[in-house]
């Protein structure tokens, strides 16, 4: 078991290096000169060739491609993610740290909503398969998976915040501010997991172990919760774990709709300002999160499944 964990962690390292390289290359393929944009953002009145060259030297853009990548990678390993092109008085790490809590708050609230809503609803849909509740929920699931989040966000804002005046439209600060954006982020995940849990449970209900539990006369509640739900959840663990980084990265659009001051808002403004170090680090961060959560939940699933657990660990 220990060996397995170490092996998994070791295989994750080259993956992270590849991710970092790909994200560096792609960001640098963006067809505009960041030095020029930096000058414009710094409101330099006349942009000359010399000024551009000067800024390029200042930002290290005059060095060869690969050297820049290696330098960047080593700096990252030392926790130095560079300085914002747009505002040289700010470090990238500082910018991300400033915006991260708001995003984590939003993603965390979304995750809680996903778990609290999809598990009971999926469970009830499976238990009362083809009943009214199941049919209504299947309809809703079908509709919501087809709706893009920004549109749902605007719709909710219009209905709940403007028409009904129940919750604030934008900004952050209190839990009321959190509800609409969190619900918007989580909606498609809720639909996905309702369907996943429902189908998983129905699949499990056909298994021999359920028939045998019935043969032994176990109470229905016990069969449903102790056996069927646990087995179904088991297969959902990895999916839910993998959706944590998705939730964090998925807040980009919704944060902008609700003016939520998190990483998404930072990322979009950095894209407009060609602030490469910030975008690069953001993309790297998300990539690393995907790898780490994948690893974590893969190991968790292995540990929690007696069939995969090796003897004597």
């Amino acid at each position: 078991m220990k060996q397995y964990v170490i092996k998994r962690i070791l295989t994750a390292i080259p993956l992270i290096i590849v991710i970092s390289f790909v994200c560096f290359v792609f960001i640098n393929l963006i067809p505009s000169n960041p030095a020029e944009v930096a000058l414009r953002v710094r409101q330099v009145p006349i942009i000359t060739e010399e000024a551009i060259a000067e800024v390029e030297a200042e930002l290290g853009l005059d060095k060869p491609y690969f050297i820049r990548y290696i330098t960047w990678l080593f700096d990252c390993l030392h926790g130095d993610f560079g300085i914002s092109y747009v505002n040289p008085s700010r470090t990238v790490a500082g910018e991300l740290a400033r915006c991260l809590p708001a995003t984590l708050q939003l993603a965390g609230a979304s995750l809680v909503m996903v778990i609290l809503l999809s598990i009971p609803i999926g469970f009830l849909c499976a238990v009362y398969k083809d009943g009214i509740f199941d049919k209504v929920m299947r309809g809703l699931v079908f509709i919501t998976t087809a709706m893009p989040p920004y549109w749902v966000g605007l719709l909710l804002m219009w209905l709940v915040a403007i028409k009904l005046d129940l919750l604030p439209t934008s900004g952050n600060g209190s839990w009321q501010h959190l509800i609409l954006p969190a619900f918007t982020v989580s909606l498609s995940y809720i639909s996905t997991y309702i369907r996943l849990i429902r189908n998983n449970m129905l699949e499990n209900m056909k298994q021999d172990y359920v028939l045998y539990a019935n043969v032994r006369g176990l109470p229905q509640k016990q069969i449903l919760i102790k056996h069927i739900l646990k087995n179904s959840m088991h297969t959902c663990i990895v999916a839910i774990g993998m959706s944590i980084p998705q939730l964090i990265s998925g807040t980009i659009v919704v944060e902008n709709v609700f003016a939520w001051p998190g990483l998404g808002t930072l990322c979009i403004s950095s894209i407009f300002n060609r602030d490469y170090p910030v975008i690069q680090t953001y993309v790297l961060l998300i990539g690393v999160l995907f790898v780490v959560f994948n690893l974590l939940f893969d190991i968790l699933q292995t540990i929690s499944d007696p069939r995969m657990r090796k003897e004597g660990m």
Partner: protein
Amino acid sequence: MKPVLKVEDLSVILNSKKSGKVLVENSDFEVYPGECLGILGESGSGKSMTVKSFLGLLDKQFTAKGSAWFEGKNLMQEGKESLRSIRGKEISMVLQNPMTCFDPLYRIGNQMSETFATHTKWSSKEIRENSMDILKRMHIRNPEEVLEKYPHQLSGGMLQRIMIGLAVSLKPKLLIADEPTTAIDSITQHEILNAFLEIKEQHNTAMIFISHDLGAISKVADKIIVMNKGQIVDRGDFHHILHHAKDSYTRLLIEKRNAVLNRYQKVLGGAV
């Protein structure tokens, strides 16, 4: 003597949109105390459906009609909760695929004790003692360790014996075995059949033994009914079935068996 179970006019119908497909048609049979009834028939002939129907184990898509008298109650009219409390205690059952019948996520000891906790008021100490006792009686070595094992860590034969031990542990009036020897190798099959013979001798339990294998049935059953396409086509003891079977389908089963036997004897004869 009164039968333990008396089934009359039992039919199982698959509800479909177009028309109901009859899976079991007007079955009649009875089982007396200490007697073993064999149900013989090819796979898909409706053997499992027959017993599932009066135990309340059929899915909603099936409808069952007729009556099944057990202890003065018509099981076909009993409510879900009443049937549940009968299952596992008064009527217990052994299934075909021991490897898949236990929940993979729980230890054997846990799954045995949940069964006892459902049907008895035993303390956890009594539950443990009884679980150990079952394993010992089923000739399972290191019972203490086995209780701590997960299903995938045990062999099919061992799980099958645990299932049988659990089925007889609460002293049922009727024990149903649905193809208990089909999914295991022939050496273990022999052990399993012996286990059933032991139960018959020691407990005088009424039994229904379902199989598609005439050889296995002939060892344990006192009387046999033969099913084909949902209908009972022949009934009687083993000799009657072997020599006087009227139904062409039954004779086909017998010929198949004889062919296997002959080949077996030739191989043996050749070797000597």
